[in-house]
């Protein structure tokens, strides 16, 4: 039954990639996560399986009576095969750790994939909201509305001194992790990126690659997030991140102007060659797609007449991942088959008139 809920997602794009948002040429999405734990039960890692089961049943009951999470479903990890779990991870709906979790844990998912609650990850609850573009307030309001409803039904571990108590002391306090997912090709091309990333880490923010913690940087995509959760209010955390994000965006735009002034023809050539490859190649690897999509996305941002839209490009970043392809094909494929299937999908999506 849970697997069929996953199947429903296959053809559907994630909201955070498919809809336009503010500043969407530079910011793909904004994510807010709140870590919460139940007061009377040990943190997940130290809880017994039956205690984890109690967490699941209490949290799911609370979610089911929440208006914000209305019409959602709970997907217990135990009912999902590895492919389905991988699929959810590619969609950024569950963490990499959840893919291999064998104890009671799961994901509460709303219809539109906006609000989600991961149950029994490192913390009992990880309440998350992801919205397209640079929309820190929208994401925060959404996640807060969910949290307030769950707070009414559950008793969270909280101390006046330290705030919300979390399994890792790096999350204690607000339990809030805010991140913006940025596309910064000009800063990479002009070699200013190192300096900018250093600046970001000096003001206490963290920078990560495409797939979060520990992942390498692909396709000029970066995730910038707060690290401090204690001693700053939620409002201050939001304002800080917004301020720094806007500074980084300004630096990207300055670098963009320099590039256009000094190497316009070379840049345009690169972008249209990338588009040509995406529209014509017969085999593509996942990494290739990310890098080519990055180049074409850059072209859209520059307004140089690239005949594709940002949502179509953004969606390719998720749809062309291995588990998505396997689910779409409905069968396991060899690497060669998968690369060919991926190229067909990309061609279909990016060539006007080819589809249907």
């Amino acid at each position, binding site marked *: 039954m849970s697997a069929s809920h996953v199947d429903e997602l296959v053809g559907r794009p994630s909201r955070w990639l498919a809809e336009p948002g503010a500043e969407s040429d530079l910011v793909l999405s904004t994510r807010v996560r709140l870590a919460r*734990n139940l*007061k009377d*039960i*040990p*943190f997940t*890692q*130290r809880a017994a399986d039956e205690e984890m089961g109690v967490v699941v049943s209490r949290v799911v009951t609370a979610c089911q009576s929440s208006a914000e999470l209305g019409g959602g479903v709970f997907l217990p990890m135990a009912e999902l095969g590895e492919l389905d779990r991988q699929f959810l991870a590619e969609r950024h709906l569950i963490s990499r750790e959840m893919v291999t979790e064998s104890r009671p844990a799961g994901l509460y998912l709303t219809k539109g994939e906006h609000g989600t609650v991961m149950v029994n990850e*490192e913390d009992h609850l990880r309440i998350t909201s992801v919205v397209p573009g640079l929309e820190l*307030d929208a994401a*925060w*309001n959404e996640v807060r509305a969910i949290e*307030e409803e769950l*707070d*009414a039904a559950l*008793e*969270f*571990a*909280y*101390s*006046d*001194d*330290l*705030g*919300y*108590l979390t*399994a*890792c*002391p*790096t999350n*204690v*306090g*607000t339990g*809030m992790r805010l991140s913006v997912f940025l596309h910064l*090709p000009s800063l*990479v*091309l002009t070699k200013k990126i190192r300096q900018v990333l250093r600046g970001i*880490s000096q003001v*206490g923010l963290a920078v990560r690659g495409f797939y979060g913690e520990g992942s*390498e*940087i692909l396709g*000029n995509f970066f995730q910038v997030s707060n*690290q*401090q*959760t*204690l*001693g*700053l*209010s*939620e*409002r201050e*955390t939001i304002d800080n991140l917004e301020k720094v994000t806007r500074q980084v965006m300004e630096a990207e735009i300055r670098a963009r102007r320099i590039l256009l002034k000094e190497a316009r023809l070379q840049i345009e050539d690169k972008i249209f060659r990338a588009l040509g490859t995406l529209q014509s190649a017969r085999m593509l690897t996942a990494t290739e797609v990310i*890098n080519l999509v*990055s*180049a074409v996305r850059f072209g859209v941002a520059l307004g140089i007449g690239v005949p594709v839209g940002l949502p179509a490009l953004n969606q390719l970043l998720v749809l062309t991942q291995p588990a998505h392809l396997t689910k779409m094909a409905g069968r396991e494929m060899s690497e060669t088959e998968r690369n060919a299937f991926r190229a067909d999908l990309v061609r279909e999506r990016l060539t006007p008139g080819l589809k249907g």
Partner: protein
Amino acid sequence: MVKKCQNCGKAPAKHHIKKWENNVEVDLALCDACAEAKGFSPAAAKKSGLAETLGDMLEGLEGVSEGAVGGIECSRCGLLYSTFRQTGRLGCPHCYEAFEKQLKPLLRRVHGAVRHTGRAPAGDDEHAARRQEIRRMQDEMERAVAREEFERAAELRDTIRRLSEEPAAHPASGAPGGERSAK
């Protein structure tokens, strides 16, 4: 055959680094000295502060009495402090009290602060906000005393006294939880 360092061409290459240059992934094979010079070696990473793990931090913070501290146990979940040192994960909410002394310097280092100033659970808002405000002022008072700003300290002491005696009807201004987004 051992591969030579791509930079100096002499010493054996010990570090294999993937790097992004002009949108292209470049593989670098460097010897110890060249890797360090280019800022890729673990030693250099440590200097930049980015590769610092919780474990490293903890070690630096209470390395002296390691044995004694490691034996402290949380009375609720039985987690040993030494286990926390290894995993970086606490066992239960009570661990924050059990290891309060050890965690404080860590929290200060990680967050630059040891007191929560954000939202509180509903229903607890008024009391919690006021208690927080009082604690914040106590901190400030201690700092004022340390700076020998006794007048300021006395002002704070009086405010704290007043707040502590007031009925719970007026949460301190700037209280968390009550704020609504302005945008």
